């Protein structure tokens, strides 16, 4: 099976739920396990939240969400045109947060890394951030 969908959404926090439910619905034909579905929904939620509160720092902007199915592999790309990440390595450290006053747990990237098989982060200051992550679903 090969299939792809792209969603362009505003960086409103209301859209976090829409994003993860849309992706969950899109991959439903693959019959993922409840665990796989939950892992993917959580990873999407983390990436979208990052784009909203870090990328756009609560200002309005567009988030580009693409999901591709190749066989039983799910590849998800989340792209923003926000402020970018200064130091990706530091941002990905467990418990690191650039916004300690906002009650961020600092484990967003750790969750994405743990719940997905692969994650790739690219960022350019003042141009934005792209996260690509993938997961192979077990045979149904």
């Amino acid at each position: 099976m090969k299939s792809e969908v792209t969603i362009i959404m505003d960086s409103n926090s209301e859209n976090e739920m829409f994003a993860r439910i849309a992706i969950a619905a899109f991959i439903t034909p693959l019959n993922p396990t409840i665990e796989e579905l939950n892992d993917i929904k959580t990873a999407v939620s983390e990436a979208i939240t990052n784009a909203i509160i870090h990328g756009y720092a609560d200002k309005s902007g567009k988030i580009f969400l693409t999901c591709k199915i190749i066989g039983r592999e799910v590849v998800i790309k989340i792209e923003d045109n926000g402020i970018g990440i200064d130091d990706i390595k530091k941002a990905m450290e467990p418990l690191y947060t650039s916004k300690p006053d906002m009650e961020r747990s600092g484990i967003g990237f750790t969750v994405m890394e743990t719940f997905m098989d692969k994650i790739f982060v690219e960022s350019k200051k003042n141009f934005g951030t792209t996260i690509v992550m993938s997961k192979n679903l077990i045979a149904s």
Partner: protein
Amino acid sequence: MQINSAGKDLIVKIDGDIDHHVSSQIKEKVEREFEFSNAENIIFDFSNVNFMDSSGIGMIIGRYKMLQKTGGKIYIANVKPQLESIIEISGLRKIINFIDKI
């Protein structure tokens, strides 16, 4: 979300997903209710929570820090199995009491 006082406990029953959007609403409401109540502890009832991401973890840790000042405790009740992995990664069990019944 329903918030009720029961003696020294403020019981917060959450319905639905806990993400960044919902976390800020919970934070605001719980802080306000806690201030006006005589409660010392907060019990989160998770029986209707099917999803939580790291924003929810941040919100819980925030309430933990808030109660630390007055010596109160945070309890989380009725956690569904699908929340186990995020709770495990966060290390939340080291500081929060998980219970099966309220």
